[in-house]
């Protein structure tokens, strides 16, 4: 859907056209998403402003609208107006505000347009408020009245309608896997090497980001090569293989739950034991941590990142890596959803330390790392593209300081954003997934057949 027609901004027209019942519905959804935890957060901000420097938007843009405490206040002010005694009776005193057109406009601009839901401000909050959780609640309220910016909404819609966010037809996916299987066989010198599809009873059910078959097919070959070397029992599904879940970013829990449930159904149909998530930050956070909450059920199977699996292979001696095969200096960008919000912190380091001759950490790193600016659905929301690139300056500077020629990052949103930053800030780097680097360092006994 185009966001602009001539001089008219259709999205802005949509905001203007909101009726009282729409605003009431947004408020109702906002209320429904609250629980004891979120309500405590909404009562707790002391406006100390110490979160300012933790946000890459604020550091780059230096405007108050980008300050995490300000973004949080957009939600707390509404909460106080409708759910607190003083906020109802003396709104000016504690700054409570009605949810009206003006506030909705501000919500869209800041809550969608100035936040990647990276959680860095939450980690730095003096009070311990999970600010990004509240921002997502506000996104849910906007989603309920159709105010998710078009690019992000269409990504969700495509995934729901077609089964994957790129709208890849099943036959194209199957053909791609078959073609890539030949590539794998050639690379490992073994005609029996497989990229298995729908293989019942496999131990691992492996998912991919649909951008891989479309634009980065070599990352699929890389994963296949590692599984081959480890003699793993694994499979893709021909139906549901999309690890991404843009419902996390749009705030639409129902759509998000539907997407995650499809993976589970396909996995169970094939009788696999472990759901293995490809290198995708938000896909990991969605399917490992959030999906059981969206679906209100505990899983009776394991959910793992491919990084956990590969790090285990290395530690168990199932694969051997030769770091001299990756002689260039490599640095690592930690995706927020995988690391700060996902808990996968050391696995990628274990892999890179075995796979690269020279591995250089960024500063800061791990859970303290800066967001690259590509999360939160920002890459899909073209109306905020310029801001996204400006906010990425912090990451560009961080990369430049390492002097590395290759940036490894286990997330395709991060890859896309860093590739754009590479062009915009002339960094002169290559961007790769961690598995691609590991696959390049694999020591194989070739020519088996």
């Amino acid at each position, binding site marked *: 859907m185009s966001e602009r027609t001539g001089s008219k901004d259709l999205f802005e027209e949509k905001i203007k056209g909101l009726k009282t019942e729409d605003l009431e519905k947004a408020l109702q959804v906002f*209320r429904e998403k*609250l*629980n*004891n*935890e*979120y*309500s*405590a957060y909404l*009562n*707790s901000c*002391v*406006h*100390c*402003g*110490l*979160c*300012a*420097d*933790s946000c890459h938007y604020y550091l780059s843009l230096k405007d*108050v609208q980008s*300050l995490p*405490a*300000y973004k949080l*206040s957009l939600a707390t002010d509404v909460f106080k107006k409708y*759910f607190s*005694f*003083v906020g109802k009776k003396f709104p*000016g*005193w*504690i*700054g409570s505000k009605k949810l009206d057109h003006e506030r909705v406009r501000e919500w869209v601009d800041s809550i969608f347009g100035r936040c990647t839901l990276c959680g860095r401000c939450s*980690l*730095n*909050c*003096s*009070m*311990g*408020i*999970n600010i990004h959780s509240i921002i997502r609640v506000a996104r849910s309220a906007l989603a309920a009245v159709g105010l998710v910016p078009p690019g992000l909404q269409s990504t969700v819609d495509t995934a729901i309608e077609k089964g994957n966010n790129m709208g890849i037809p099943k036959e194209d996916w199957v053909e791609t896997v078959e073609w890539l299987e030949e590539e794998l066989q050639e690379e490992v010198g073994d005609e029996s090497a497989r990229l298995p599809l729908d293989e019942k009873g496999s131990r691992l059910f492996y998912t991919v980001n649909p951008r891989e078959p479309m634009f980065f097919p070599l990352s699929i070959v890389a994963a296949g090569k590692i599984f081959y070397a480890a003699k793993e029992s694994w499979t893709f599904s021909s139906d549901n293989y999309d690890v991404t879940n843009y419902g996390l970013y749009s705030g639409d829990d129902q759509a998000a739950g539907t997407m995650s449930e499809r993976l589970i159904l396909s996995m169970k149909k094939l009788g696999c034991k472990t759901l293995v998530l490809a290198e995708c930050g938000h896909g990991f956070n969605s399917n*490992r*941590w*959030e*999906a*059981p*909450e969206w*679906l*209100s*059920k*505990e*899983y009776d199977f394991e959910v793992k990142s491919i990084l956990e699996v590969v790090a285990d292979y290395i530690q168990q001696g199932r694969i051997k890596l030769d770091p001299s095969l990756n002689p260039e200096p490599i640095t690592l960008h930690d995706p927020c959803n995988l690391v*700060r*919000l*996902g*808990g996968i*912190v050391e696995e990628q380091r274990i892999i890179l330390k075995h796979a690269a001759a020279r591995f250089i*950490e960024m*500063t*800061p*790193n791990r*859970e303290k790392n800066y967001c690259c600016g590509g999360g939160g659905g920002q890459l899909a929301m073209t109306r905020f593209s310029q801001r996204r690139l400006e906010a990425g300056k912090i990451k560009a500077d961080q990369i430049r300081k390492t002097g590395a020629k290759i940036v490894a990052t286990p997330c395709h949103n991060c890859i896309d954003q860093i590739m754009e930053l590479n062009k915009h800030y002339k960094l002169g780097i290559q961007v790769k997934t961690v598995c691609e680097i590991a696959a390049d360092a694999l020591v194989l006994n070739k020519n088996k057949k």
Partner: protein
Amino acid sequence: MLLSLKIGVVLSFVFAVLSLSILVIRTFAFGKRIFHSESRKEGKRGIVYAFGRGMLPWEKESAAKHLPTYFGGILYHTGIFAALVYLFWRVFSLNLPAPLMLIFRIVMVVGFLSGIALLLKRAALPVMRKISCPDDFAANVLVSLFVTGAFVETLYEPFVPFFYSMAIVMFLYMPLGKIRHCFFFFYTRVLFGYSYGRRGVMPPPRKQKA
């Protein structure tokens, strides 16, 4: 009159506790969050971190980059705590030993000065003004007056009606405005520590290579 004020202090304190309890009930009225995802590590380790190492400036960038504000905040709150302990002593007509009294005086006066510094920072910086509301200023002024009252009273006993009056106003205001964070601080830090703890993000290893 003094007895009436003492009773007033006790009643306003009870009011504050009851009102904060109602706030807690209202918080849970939104529904208790139940986690369905399997924990990676124990949540309680995250809670311990959130109240310990996780508060230190070398663990938290927001503190490291704003050391004057960080230490100002700590000293301010220590002063408030000392004034509250002293209030308890006075209301129940207990006597503090002289060396302890000296420590209390120092802590309270440093706390007061820190509070004023934070107030001035809020008033002076445009960004801080933009994120502040009248309640932010009022809460600071009110609590600073309470700490002042406690400090002056330790030196000049006739000041006790002012000290008790400020305590009453502060307790009555506590559940209505920002001062309610005296309760929510502990609650949100627990929630924060638990949520990051169960995901295995906190506590981070003690020694991380740069």
